[in-house]
Structures are given as C-alpha cells and as structure tokens.
C-alpha cells in the first residue's frame, strides 16, 4: 500500500435484509438575534460567535462529533445538524433531538461573545423552515435505497405521496396574504419549484437526485427528500420518516402501488397546503381528481394490506399505521382532537386558536406569529415545545435519557459506531484527524485513509487497529 493512500483491504459488503434501511435527517436552524442593535452584526457574524468553541476544538466550523453526527454552518449562516446513520427510527429520533440540544448548547457562549462585542441580546434558534421575510431553509430526509437502473421512475413514483403527506406531517403555519390570513399545513410547499432535480440552490426540487450515496455506489443510492417540514414533534417525525419508509419498502419489493401520478405537482402541493379541509382536489395524470385525504388513504391502504407479509408487523409499524389513519381521519372529519398532541400542525393549531380566542384578535396578529416562533424555538427554557412535552400536551417517542445518551454516543448498529469511536478517541489523544461520511484518517503524511463504504457495518478490524495504535504511548505507528 502506498503511504497516505486509501487502504485496499476493504471488507466485502454485508448481506443485509431488504427491510433494513439507513436513515438520516439534516436540519437547518433559523438563527435570530434579538437585540436592540442587532443590525450592527450580520447573521454570518452571529453564527461565527455561536460556533466559536466548535472552531476552537475542531479547527473548523464544519465538524463531526463523537456521536458521529455532523455540525456546521450552512449557506446563509444557518447552523446545521445532520444525524449520523441510523437504522432504527428510535435512534433517528433520539439523534435528531440530541442535535437540538447540541446546537442549543452553543447559545450561551455566543451571547456572551456578542455582549463582549457590544451587542447584548438573546440568540434564538428555530427548528422551522421560513424566516419573517419568506426566506426558506430545509429539513432533508435521507433514505438509503438499493441501486436500480430505473431510479428516476422509482423516485418519481414517490411524488404523489410526498405532495400529499403534509396533511399529516406538515408543521402547520399561518399564511399571511394581502387578502387575508389562513392556517396552512405547510410553509414549505410555497417554496417548491419542481418535482425532481439535482440542484438545490437554483431550483427547489422535492427530491434531489444528485447521485451521492455516501456508500458503496454499486449497491446503494440515496433517496434525498427535501420537501418535508422540520418537525418539533417526535411522533410527527416517526410518521414522516416511518410512512415514507413503508412506501419505499413496498416499492423496493416491487409491489405495484396504485398509479396516482399527478398532472401538475407544483400546483397540487400548493393547493393541498392551503386547504385545511382536505377537500380540495388535485388532478391526476389520468384525468381523475382526488382529494389529498383520498390520496393518502390509498397509500395507507396499500401499506396496511401488506402488513404481516411484505411488511413485518412490529409495534412500531402498528404505531405508524395507527397515527397515519388517525391523522387522515382528523382532516376528513375536521375533528382534530384525536391528533392534537401528536401531529405538529394540529398541536400548533390548537395553541394558536386558544391564544387567538384569549386575545380576541385576528389571525394575522403579530402575537400569533410570535407564538409560532416560540413553538419552533429549541431552547429548553425559552422554547414552547419543551413545555408542551412537560405538560403532557405533546407526545414523545423516546425518553429524555435516550436523547441525552445520543448527545455523546453514536448509533451502535451502523457505520456511525466506527466514526463515533474514531472521533472520540482522536480527540482524547489530542491527534489531528480528518473525517467525513465514508473516510477516517489521522493527520500525518504516512497515515492511511480508511474507507468505510458499507453503512451497515458497525465493526471493522482496520478501525480497531487504528484505535489500538492511538492508545500506544509515543508516536502512533502506521
């Protein structure tokens, strides 16, 4: 092997069951400095102060953490947290929630540094998708799928599901227009421009088709869904990712799904977002007109008919299917009380309506917009969502102990376990290193790069010997 080259002894890919999948969630946070002279600093400067300690230990504002997740500042000064590879939904939700805590931990120091610079105020971080001027930012869902020749057709078959799932998984928002205000399922729908594309900045697709599997490209592709809302509610995340996974499982098993191809996806996603009754129809390519409720019910029926054979019946699958049905029923009957602790839009709508009636104000009142921001504020003290959980007004999936564990521990059953051990050990040893989703390398010209192509592989002898060498006294031996 050449010095500094990539190690050639890559183990063969694991043979994993078809239903096992890698999930990941990427969240861009809204960054808001509330200070009398906030205009004295740019969002980039605020982000810089926020990430000061990260740069100190990581020498960069783009780092991988000992829990194997990635933390960085994205375009537009958005703090971003990407969960490590998870192969269960509980790991995913714990890692996602841990990310909120990790990002929030930067706030205190950021505020102190800003105060030292003469800008005394509070930093708010929002897990939402739009700022007050209408700039949009995302929550990206990643689903590892088996590579296939017809990926484009495969992905496009998912679009009718993605266009309509917002009636159950949307974050809900008050939409203000020149002619009045109304409550919508999703703020993100208005920012989508096309169904599929490989670009994200110039265009805003629902599925990004850039071929970047972060894994063995002969076997895998990544389904990169960027149309979803960020979720505060753990149960909403469970449904958002869980239902999408179940649809993908049927598609990957080549079980025919009803053809619900939409005539005009962009028109449809907006029509669905702005119709809380669920009765507005969308036009299908075959000329039929269906409501979002009917489209979602069709997908749910297709899933439910295969639970017990193509889809293994587990308590988690049953929980997803049950919440999915109750969400559809809530929209159809316009009685939201069955899901108003579990689905973000319904939790938020209940809060907004209650507050509105107390204030006796119109829906466009700024105090309601303020309430909406508080809902998405990730601070355990200033944020509203934590209090909703505390008071039993928002349901959970994982325990506080699981979230706490996920702050400093990688998921144990995927490649993330290897990255987590590596990052933690290198930091402990004070060794410089470089790391990304598929590579690990200790700094130094002769050190080799370990290539981790299999995201399902949680153990690896090459990593073991690398870490053993780190533990040895004196300079590490290659």
């Amino acid at each position: 092997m050449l010095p500094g080259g990539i190690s050639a002894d890559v183990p063969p890919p694991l043979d994993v069951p078809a239903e096992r999948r890698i999930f990941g969630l990427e969240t861009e946070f809204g960054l808001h400095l509330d200070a009398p002279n906030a205009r004295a600093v740019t969002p980039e400067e605020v982000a810089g102060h926020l990430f000061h300690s990260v740069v100190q230990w990581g020498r960069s504002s783009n780092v991988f953490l000992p829990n194997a997740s990635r933390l960085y500042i994205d375009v537009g000064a958005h703090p971003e947290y990407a969960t490590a590879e998870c192969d269960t939904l509980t790991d995913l939700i714990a890692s996602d929630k841990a990310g909120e805590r990790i990002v929030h931990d930067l706030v205190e120091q950021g505020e102190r540094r800003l105060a030292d610079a003469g800008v005394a105020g509070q930093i708010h971080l929002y897990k939402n998708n739009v700022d007050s001027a209408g700039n949009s930012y995302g929550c990206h869902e990643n689903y590892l799928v088996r590579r296939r020749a017809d990926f484009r057709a495969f992905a496009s078959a998912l679009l009718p599901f993605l266009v309509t799932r917002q009636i159950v998984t949307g974050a809900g928002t008050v939409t203000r227009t020149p002619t009045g205000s109304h409550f919508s399922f999703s703020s993100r729908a208005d920012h989508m421009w096309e169904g599929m594309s490989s670009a994200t900045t110039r265009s805003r697709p629902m599925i990004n088709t850039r071929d970047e599997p972060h894994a063995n490209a002969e076997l895998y592709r990544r389904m990169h869904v960027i149309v979803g809302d960020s979720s505060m509610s753990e149960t909403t995340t469970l449904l958002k990712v869980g239902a999408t996974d179940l649809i993908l499982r049927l598609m990957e098993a080549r079980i025919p799904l009803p053809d619900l191809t939409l005539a005009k996806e962009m028109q449809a996603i907006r029509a669905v977002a702005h119709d809380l009754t669920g009765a507005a129809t969308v036009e299908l390519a075959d000329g039929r007109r269906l409501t979002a409720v009917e489209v979602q019910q069709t997908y749910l029926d297709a899933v439910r008919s295969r639970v017990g054979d193509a889809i293994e019946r587990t308590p988690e699958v049953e929980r997803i299917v049950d919440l999915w049905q109750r969400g559809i029923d809530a929209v159809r009957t316009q009685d939201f009380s069955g899901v108003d602790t579990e689905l973000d839009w319904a939790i938020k709508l209940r809060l907004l309506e209650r507050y509105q009636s107390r204030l006796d104000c119109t829906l466009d009142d700024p105090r309601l917009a303020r309430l909406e921001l508080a809902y998405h504020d990730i601070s355990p003290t200033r944020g509203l969502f934590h209090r909703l959980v505390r008071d039993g007004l928002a349901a959970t999936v994982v325990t506080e102990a699981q979230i706490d564990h996920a702050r400093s521990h990688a998921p144990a059953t995927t490649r993330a376990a290897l990255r987590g051990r590596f990052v933690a050990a290198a930091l402990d040893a004070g060794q410089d290193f470089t790391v990304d989703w598929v590579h690990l390398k200790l700094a130094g010209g002769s050190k080799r790069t370990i290539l981790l192509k299999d995201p399902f592989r949680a153990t690896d002898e090459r990593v073991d010997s690398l870490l053993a060498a780190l533990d040895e006294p004196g300079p590490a031996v290659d």
Partner: protein
Amino acid sequence: MPQTHASGQPYEDDAPEPAPTPGGAKAESTDALDSLLDEIDDSLQTNAEQFVRSFVQKGGQ
C-alpha cells in the same frame, strides 16, 4: 404467572367505573394549555411585532 392470576378474576367486583365527566380529560388538557399560555403570555406580548420582523436570516431580499 402473576399476570394471568391478576386478570383471572376480573368480574368479582364489577362495579362500573365512575362515568367520566363529559370531556373530562379534554377539559383538564385545556386547563393545562391555558396555564401554559398564562406562563408565556407576557413574553409573547412584549414587542411581538418588532421581534417577529427582526427575524430575517438573509438580508436584502
């Protein structure tokens, strides 16, 4: 075994559960919602408009 034993004689004392007051759980939850809103009302009302308007992540658009 303790489980089957416990559920083995469920009908000896089958006095009906007290009927829940209509909307009992819901009313309780609405109370919780109201006290939560009480808790945050002041901070939400303070300069709400200015607060909301100042949250712009990308200037100049």
